């Protein structure tokens, strides 16, 4: 039986367009539900609060304030983008890298350790942070490939183990007065990432905008090229889509799984250093829970349609509303932004399945009914 489908020119049939529309719908759903919750908390200021979330830095009146808050959001978008790349890269290969949060923490720990403890220049700190994340990712990959350990659960366990280890690692470098690590610009200025020539001037010399921003975008493009145009990308995607066929073809699927997780881990670890080495944020003493950045990366990854370039926009958006959430009136808890992000992930799960169902419907149409077949 032949495929009698005639390709229709409707724009709605292009998968990319479908993904964008689906992502927008998820966002709307998240914002709507968030808005309802705000209404329930305090109807009076709800609209204004929602407005603040959506407009973030633009809610400020003075241009200088606007720019400085935009800069803040931009700086925080960088680690989020890296974490989302980490998640989407491994997802394309069929693995759910929830351990991105722990790889992120490992990056913080090792990066700051090299800065404070070994007085290393920023680029060494970054490379070591990346390697730390990669090592952690590789462990999850190894466990999956050799012992069939579910990478979600091993990821969570490693997240917590890492958290405690990093607390121990950075304990000697704590500024007792501030209850956090010392400010790099004061103690180890060589470890601070150089200022971004492009964004720095645009943003009136915003204190923390570094070349990390350009670097992150370049990396996103690089990941996209890796996935679509290289032999490695071909192998990794094949392994994720059908590991049996990959094995049949002679691809080393165990090795590829470990490599993929290592790359994912490296992205998250690198992202951590790209944030903490701007000196905008320090590591507090005795942190009790894994930082949210790794988990928000999941939201950004799916919202961006699991595409590296889409992730650039979705990461900015998620960070945008997260920061906006912090500017609301105090009666509204700032966690609402996290809540909205989580709803977006939930909605994205439906988006994925809609795409799957469309694919299956096409297949059912033309595949023969095989009377004697094992499924």
């Amino acid at each position, binding site marked *: 039986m032949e495929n009698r489908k005639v390709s229709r020119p409707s724009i709605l049939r292009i998968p990319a367009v479908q993904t964008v529309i689906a992502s927008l719908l998820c966002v709307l759903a998240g914002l709507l539900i968030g808005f309802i919750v705000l209404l329930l*908390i305090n109807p009076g200021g709800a609209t204004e609060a929602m407005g603040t979330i959506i407009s973030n830095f633009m809610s400020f009146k003075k241009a200088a304030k606007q720019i400085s808050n935009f800069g803040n959001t931009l700086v925080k978008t960088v680690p989020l983008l890296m974490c989302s790349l980490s998640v989407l890269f491994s997802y394309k290969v069929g693995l759910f890298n929830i351990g991105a949060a722990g790889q992120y923490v490992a990056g913080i720990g090792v990066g700051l350790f090299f800065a404070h403890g070994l007085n290393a220049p920023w680029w060494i700190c970054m490379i070591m942070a990346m390697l730390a994340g990669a090592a952690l990712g590789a462990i999850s990959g190894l466990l999956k490939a050799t012992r069939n350990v579910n990478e979600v*659960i091993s990821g969570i366990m490693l997240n917590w183990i890492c958290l405690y280890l990093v607390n121990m690692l950075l304990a000697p470098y704590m500024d007792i007065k501030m209850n956090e690590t010392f400010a790099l610009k004061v103690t180890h200025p060589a470890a601070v990432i150089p200022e971004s020539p492009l964004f720095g001037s645009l943003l009136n010399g915003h204190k923390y905008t570094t070349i990390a921003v350009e670097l992150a975008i370049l990396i996103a493009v690089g990941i996209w090229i890796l996935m679509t145009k290289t032999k490695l990308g071909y192998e990794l995607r094949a392994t994720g889509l059908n590991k049996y066929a990959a094995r049949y073809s002679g691809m080393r699927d165990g090795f590829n799984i470990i490599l993929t997780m290592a790359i994912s881990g490296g992205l998250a670890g690198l992202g951590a250093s790209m944030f903490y080495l701007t000196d905008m944020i320090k590591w507090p003493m005795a942190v009790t829970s894994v930082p949210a950045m790794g988990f928000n990366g999941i939201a950004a990854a799916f919202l961006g349609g699991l595409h590296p370039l889409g992730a650039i926009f979705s990461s900015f958006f998620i960070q945008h509303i997260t920061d906006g959430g912090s500017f609301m009136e105090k009666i509204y808890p700032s966690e*609402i932004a996290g809540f909205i992000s989580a709803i977006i992930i939930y909605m994205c*799960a439906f988006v994925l399945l809609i795409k799957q169902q469309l694919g299956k419907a096409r297949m059912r149409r033309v595949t023969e009914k095989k009377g004697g077949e094992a499924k």
Partner: protein
Amino acid sequence: MTLLIQYTLLFASVLMLVALGGCFSEHSGVINIGLEGIMVFGALGGALALRYLPDGSAAVIVILASVLAAMAAGILYSMLLAVAAINFKADQTLVGTAMNLMGVAAATVLVKALNTAENPNNPSATIAYGSARKSFLIAEGMEFSWLTLLAVVLLVLAWFVLYKTKFGLRLQSCGEHPQAAASVGISVYKMRYAGVMISGALGGLGGLVYITAAVSEWKFENGVAGFGFLALAVMIFGAWKPFRIALAALLFGLFRSLSNVYTGFPFLEQLNLPGTVYNMMPYIISLIVLILFSKNSAAPKAEGIPYDQGSR
């Protein structure tokens, strides 16, 4: 020593309840990664009940009300997984992760809102239920809770339902071979809903037990510190069988309690390990367990695969 036993029993009860819940869900064929979120919600339900019950209520009422509230909250929250996974056939891991993130955020938002509504100067996400909590204790001054007994009763009930009743047989068939179940007229959808709702009830109850363990108030922004995932490891270690889960829960509970009580043991003190090592122990043990037991997994064969009536 008594402290160690008390803590072990408490943590073991939590892990066992939640793991049993996960077990029912997975036996029906739905992977429930969202146990953390369910625990938080159940804890919230129970805490609210404790908070708003009039002071001096009879112990029986306190226990009953909070347990039922916790279970109800858990069941309600688990519907998010049920609808998405069963009716819409969404990716169960993704939905579960979203539920975990949503759970803590939603609970924090809710509690903060409630607190600020009562007192605008109190934007905290804490619920205090000090006096009501005493009703849980079997004897004044000792930290043995009625809830632990309840957990044991539920354990036996779970075993019985799973292996000795019609419901249990049908439930398991849905997780192993849903097409076979459907061919004899069993409604796979209904069974899976039941499985997920049971996991909601047990998970919610587990959440309640967790937050009332030895403390009189709970900061909801802390979530449940990864206990939902530890419970998953317990479930895998227990090979999806109730009594083995109980033993696994005891083991994990023991390690978890060590970080609270190691100062009371001279020989442990002498090892001079930093406190953080004890904090890490449960997670390290989990990892080791997973490494040893994931290879020849006895997991229900059809779990995680959405059931599609059209497929034969």
